[in-house]
């Protein structure tokens, strides 16, 4: 029983990571109807940038926030400079560009930082809170941080004019132009936000899985599974899906052993797609003939 509680809580912690990346995926999907395959690599690269700053002696929290800003600007620039020229190209061409980005970030990270695994510090104390045996301080702290970030993002979209404009631009770019929204910049902002969220996820997960260029491969897959499970066009659903996947992964790992963990993600993906493609909270699409 103890073990189960520990796995559930720890699953919620990693679930927070998956939820964040899933949210980033859904944000870009809503605006462009495309899944950004390069999301994980961008997050990984941002985490390396943080590592560089930490190594140069910058204290943790300033480095943390600076990384978020850098990731935001970076994501924005990527959209304006690299994605924009192919905005009106066929879908598959844009997918190839995403794959290109993925490969470039992965390779450049390996080149600059080498493929050896690096430890990444956690800002949270090493001793568990109140000496409990269920969850480490980092897992708790990471959960808290991801919840704060997700909360801020939701508040932004729900309550600010800019957030409303971004939602409108994602749903209906033509009508948004008709009210004066600069849709191109909304898209860029979306990318910036997605990159920033990914950076937070990276900095929270790196202490657990260690920093190396391929760290996000599995995480991206789990984030996909979470986004699909929750509903690829529902940001709230994607977040819940992410947490669910984290818990399921850990609980299944207890009973079936850890080599099959990746298979669990795959089964979730295939299961959702076959049984209920719109996910738990997504809208079921009725095609009007």
């Amino acid at each position, binding site marked *: 029983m103890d073990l189960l509680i520990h796995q559930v809580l720890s699953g919620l912690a990693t679930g927070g990571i998956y939820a964040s990346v899933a949210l980033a995926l859904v944000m870009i999907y809503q605006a462009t109807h495309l899944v950004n395959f390069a999301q994980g690599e961008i997050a990984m690269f941002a985490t390396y940038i943080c590592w560089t700053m930490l190594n140069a002696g910058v204290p943790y929290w300033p480095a943390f926030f600076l990384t978020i800003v850098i990731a935001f600007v970076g994501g924005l620039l990527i959209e304006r400079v690299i994605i924009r020229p192919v905005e009106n190209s066929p879908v598959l061409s844009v997918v190839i560009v995403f794959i290109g980005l993925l490969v470039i970030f992965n390779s450049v990270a390996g080149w600059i930082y080498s493929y050896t695994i690096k430890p990444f510090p956690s800002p949270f104390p090493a001793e568990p809170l109140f000496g409990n045996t269920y969850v480490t301080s980092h897992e708790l702290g990471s959960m808290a941080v991801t919840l704060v970030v997700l909360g801020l993002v939701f508040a932004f979209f729900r309550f600010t004019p800019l957030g*409303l404009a971004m939602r409108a631009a994602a*749903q*209906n770019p033509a009508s948004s132009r008709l*009210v*004066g*929204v600069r849709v191109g910049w909304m898209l860029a902002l979306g990318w910036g936000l997605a990159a920033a969220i990914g950076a937070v996820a990276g900095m929270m997960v790196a202490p657990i899985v260690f920093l190396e260029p391929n760290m996000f491969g599995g995480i991206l897959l789990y984030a996909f599974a979470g986004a699909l499970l929750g509903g690829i066009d529902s940001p709230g659903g994607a977040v819940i899906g992410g947490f669910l996947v984290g818990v399921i992964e850990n609980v299944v790992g207890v009973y079936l052993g850890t080599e099959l963990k990746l298979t669990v993600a795959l089964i979730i993906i295939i299961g959702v797609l076959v049984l209920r493609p719109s996910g738990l909270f997504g809208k079921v699409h009725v095609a009007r003939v």
Partner: protein
Amino acid sequence: MSAPLLQVRGLHAQYGPTRVLHGIDFEVKQGGITTILGANGAGKTTTLRAMCGMVRTEGQIMLAGERIDGKATEEVVRRGVAHVPDGRGTFMHLTVEENLRMGAYTRKDKEQVQADYERMYTYFPRLRERRRQQAGTLSGGEQQMLAVSRALMLRPRLLLLDEPSFGLAPRIVQEIFRIFREINQTEGTSMLLVEQNASLALQLADEAYLLETGRVVISGSAESIRNDEAVRRSYLGY
């Protein structure tokens, strides 16, 4: 006579390789209402789209003396041109309130914007009732009211209306057109109205142009065209 708010000279427009407008001229006077009539396929909707930079054009489009041809849609809108497109273009997944808020997106005067929400709800009480409902759940007539309100939230100098009567019950159409007239008279908003329902349009408008396969074939004051039985019979069908 004051200079026209909107002046169009030699406008050509095309979708891909297909040219739809072949050099048309028209204008909308300051505070006036101009209507463009014609059958399906004549190029009426294309004309409105051309005003907003939504199709490829050649020729001159001048708004209060400034050339706006070639400008991006959102830039034209920011110069005070509001377009109610055919199909209404409502944000289906946003609430009625959020739709109106989007209409006021480019405005800086917060208090006036609040007052304007009230104004819209006064024109269209149904919208007040359904404020927090998703726009996609509204009926056709209500969506049209919402589309018009959203456009008015911009406090535009020029209002472009694409077949506002389409698919609406006559009673609602009368109501909407009454509101157009009121807005034109109290706010001085100029309007460019595209309509298939010629009699309705000619009652509201000051000037009229008749398009046929991308060319202007008749133009003149709405009154003179209304009274010209021969034109009405052969071109407007009534």
